[in-house]
């Protein structure tokens, strides 16, 4: 990789840093590469490693410094940018990247699965109640006493069953929401603890 390509990729990878941090790093590396005195198409990576590796070191150090600065100031201002940098750091490291993706995907699929189950239960309950009510109404206009009796009876029974099922589903949904928010709270607390220990 020649200087131009290296610098372009490095700049791209550092795009989330502040302008000051980014410019300082880019100027340093531009100067360093010039000092290497390579031929015009000389491979920069032989000396410095890939732009990805170089960017990872810079982002890691910048994140560390920002956290220290925050701890000294003891404010939460700029907390968002630290989280953002931390995420970048995680995603810049090759080993953690697949793990992070897997964890996020598992968590999202977990929420989707629970949501789908609750939704399916709700729809089944509502359909059951509606169908039961419909059968009961049809039963009223059905000729013949026995037919009326059976249709209205079974219709009301089904309708009641559906309503009970809906109630059960709403309890289940509340429980699930509580559980998921509990998990998220626990993870946030652990993350905050980790930060304090640094």
């Amino acid at each position, binding site marked *: 990789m020649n200087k131009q390509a290296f610098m372009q990729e490095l700049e791209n990878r550092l795009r989330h840093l502040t302008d000051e941090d980014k410019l300082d790093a880019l100027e340093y590396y531009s*100067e360093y590469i010039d000092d290497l005195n390579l031929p015009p198409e000389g491979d920069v990576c032989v000396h410095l490693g890939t732009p990805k590796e170089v960017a990872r*070191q810079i982002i890691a150090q910048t994140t560390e410094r920002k956290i220290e600065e925050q701890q000294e100031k003891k404010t939460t201002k700029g907390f968002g940018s630290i989280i953002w940098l931390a995420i970048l750091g995680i995603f810049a490291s090759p080993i953690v990247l697949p793990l992070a993706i897997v964890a996020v995907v598992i968590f999202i699929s977990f929420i989707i699965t629970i949501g789908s189950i609750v939704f399916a239960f709700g729809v089944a309950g509502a359909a059951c109640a509606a169908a039961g009510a419909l059968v009961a109404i049809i039963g009223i206009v059905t000729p013949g006493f026995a037919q009326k009796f059976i249709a209205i009876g079974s219709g009301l029974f089904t309708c009641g069953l559906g309503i009970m099922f809906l109630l059960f589903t709403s309890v289940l949904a509340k429980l699930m929401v509580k559980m998921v928010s509990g998990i998220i709270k626990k993870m946030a607390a652990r993350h905050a603890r980790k930060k304090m220990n640094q």
Partner: protein
Amino acid sequence: MTYQLTAPLLDACVLGVVEKEDVYGYTLTQRVMDVVDISESTLYPVLRRLQKSGLLETYDVPYQGRNRRYYRITPPGKDQLSFFKAEWISYKEKIDSLLGGMNLLTIDQAN
């Protein structure tokens, strides 16, 4: 290299080199690399950290139509370097006392 260089020791080495004379990134890296096993991209984050904590400062000097950024040690940097030196001496003496006699001749004979 058998022994690993820790971050404070690397800070100390960089401060030590810069104290002798102002240097720019390339020469500093070459000088440290001559002695210890680091990669060429190790020192930028170190320099940036030392600069941000006020132990080093920079100034630009024009060179062949571009700039060269020189690093210079600050008074707090000198204090920190003295501290690092004192720490190193006490650490070195403790390790020496554990390792026992440092007679190079006997080591040669053992080999």
